[in-house]
């Protein structure tokens, strides 16, 4: 028995008021996401139910009930208030997937702040861009990442506090730094939760575009309504489920469906704070009896690469529903999961900007492998002409998204944004950073096809006079970008070139290089400088 009836029945009867009613929300009333994640669940008599099963890379396991989560987020929120942080201020979470990340997120919302989670592998330059743009007031981080925050104090004048959650007292704290030991703080039975309204800002994520710096997508507390109901319908979360979302809360999936949606549904979540290893993942599913698993195509393809035999070493019969997000899920991966797990991954499509699922596959709808599915009930989706923005009504036109028998299919994208392992990377940000390397005169960055990550970053680089192309220089540039921006932005391949294709007005034509990588037609080159 699934939470959804047939797709057609849900589409026919759906309105967002259904979700509001289930959550006990009335338009105009207070709505605070964090209160719905723990206080409300406790008030429903589920305080002793497990909210979080956390496992670290060394195998240590911590368990927190919904009541633990309520008390710890109360204490954490009070701590932030005592530091002088105010409602409406942006507070960055810059941590690995430790419990403090999940509870700190809710604490920020409880005191009326705006949570700004950032991927902990980001380098200092990526941090500066996003913190300076947001005017961030405080950063919550770990000892191992604090060096990357210390170097940006001059660039982010709004930053008043750096909160370190695992300080061991061995080294003195520096300017603006304070230590918080969440689990040692007195557990507060009550905290005056900020009376946020539907349109009060809640979460700020950054997403990359073709041009310029990454842009902030700020969500509001009312996003709960769609995150709750989509988690219930699409992830099919139920009372006895143990749910594992593999996404990092530095990205939108990790907050919308790794914190808000499942906990608002009162469901037990598992978190594995460790790097990817097929054997560790399967063991984690078996050990914690995961029933619903939300992952990403790159992870699924990485598991495929490790083969079928390893799966047989584990009892994964606990799994009952699988979903995927981040990039198009290829048909082979869907069919492989059916073969080895006896279950197909359900692809879901949505964006940082939407904050919740838009076009997805459902437990009660037949999957067409390779398709992203159909619009979520209550969402109207259509394909529009790129130039006129008018809906396309004629059949048989080849574009970037196709619709066939109501199912949506990803065909391709026409911009320069690189989707690597489900994360969007903007070429401009990498090209700007490359120019800061002493050997680089100019560069162009494009996505290159990759069987596991869909795309990886490739850089074409023209060197300054006096520098010679070499393997060592290539490695040096790779590491330079990895540390400055992030491992995702690091070019996995560098091609040294004498010059780059440009328009007569001097603009680098990335599409020529991209076409070369993808083996596509280059298209109109009439504006090429050296034609």
């Amino acid at each position: 028995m699934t939470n959804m009836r047939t797709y057609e029945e849900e589409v026919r009867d759906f309105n967002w008021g259904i979700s509001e009613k289930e959550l006990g929300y009335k338009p105009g009333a207070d709505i605070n996401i964090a209160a719905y994640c723990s206080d409300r669940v406790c008030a429903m008599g589920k305080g002793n139910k497990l909210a979080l099963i956390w496992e670290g890379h060394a195998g240590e396991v911590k368990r927190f009930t919904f009541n633990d989560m309520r008390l710890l987020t109360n204490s954490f929120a009070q701590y932030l208030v005592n530091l002088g942080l105010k409602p409406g201020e942006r507070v960055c979470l810059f941590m690995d997937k430790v419990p403090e990340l999940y509870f700190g997120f809710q604490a920020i919302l409880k005191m009326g702040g705006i949570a700004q989670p950032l991927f902990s592998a980001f380098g200092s330059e990526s941090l500066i861009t996003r913190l300076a743009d947001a005017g961030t007031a405080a950063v919550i981080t770990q000892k191992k990442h604090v060096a990357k925050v210390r170097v940006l104090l001059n660039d982010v004048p709004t930053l008043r506090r750096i909160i370190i959650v695992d300080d061991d007292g061995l080294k003195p704290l520096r300017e603006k730094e304070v230590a918080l030991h969440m689990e040692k703080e007195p557990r507060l039975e009550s905290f005056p939760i900020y009376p946020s309204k539907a349109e009060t800002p809640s979460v700020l994520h950054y997403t990359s575009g073709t041009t310029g710096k990454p842009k902030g997508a700020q969500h509001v507390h009312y996003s709960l309504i769609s995150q709750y109901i989509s988690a219930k319908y699409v992830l099919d979360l139920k009372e006895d489920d143990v749910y594992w979302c593999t996404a990092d809360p530095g990205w939108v999936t990790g907050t919308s469906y790794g914190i808000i949606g499942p906990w608002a549904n009162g469901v037990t979540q598992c978190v594995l704070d460790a790097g990817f290893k097929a054997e560790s993942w399967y063991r984690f599913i078996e050990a914690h009896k995961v029933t619903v698993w939300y992952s990403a195509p790159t992870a699924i393809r990485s598991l495929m690469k490790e083969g079928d035999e390893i799966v047989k070493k584990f009892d994964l019969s606990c799994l009952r529903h699988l979903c995927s997000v981040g990039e198009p899920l290829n048909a082979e991966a869907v069919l492989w999961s059916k073969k080895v797990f006896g279950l197909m991954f359900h692809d879901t499509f949505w964006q940082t900007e939407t904050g919740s699922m838009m076009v997805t596959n459902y437990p009660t709808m037949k999957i067409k492998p390779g398709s992203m599915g159909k619009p979520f009930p209550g969402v109207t989706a259509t394909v529009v002409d790129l130039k006129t923005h008018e809906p396309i009504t004629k059949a048989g036109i080849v574009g970037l998204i196709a619709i066939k028998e109501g199912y949506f299919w990803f065909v391709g994208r026409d911009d320069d944004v690189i989707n690597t392992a489900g994360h969007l990377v903007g070429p401009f940000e990498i090209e700007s950073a490359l120019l800061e390397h002493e050997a680089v005169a100019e560069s162009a960055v494009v996505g290159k096809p990759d069987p596991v990550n869909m795309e990886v970053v490739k850089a074409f680089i023209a060197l300054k006079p006096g520098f010679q192309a070499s393997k060592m220089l290539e490695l040096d540039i790779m590491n330079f970008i990895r540390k400055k921006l992030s491992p995702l932005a690091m070019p996995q391949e560098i091609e040294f070139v004498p010059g780059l294709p440009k328009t007569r007005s001097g603009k680098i034509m990335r599409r020529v290089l991209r076409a070369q990588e993808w083996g596509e037609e280059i298209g109109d080159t009439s504006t090429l400088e050296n034609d």
Partner: protein
Amino acid sequence: MAELKDAILDYVKKEYLEEDDDREISYDTPLISGGIVDSFSMVSLKRFLETKYSIQIPDAKATPEAFDSVNNILKMLEEFNVR
């Protein structure tokens, strides 16, 4: 052998730990599953080994398991007669 071991360990410490990260890393410390080197950064570690020891590591051999500790890396390098 000891020299090779230390060269790799030193490189990992220098390149993949932040300035204030005082975690102790030994030859057996899990690098990939321990979150010190992620799957993207593994490409740069592979490139380092290839450049320093003039070898080509095929993608099929560059698995998270093979890179999961300095000792695992040494075992893999032996296949390329790097000792």
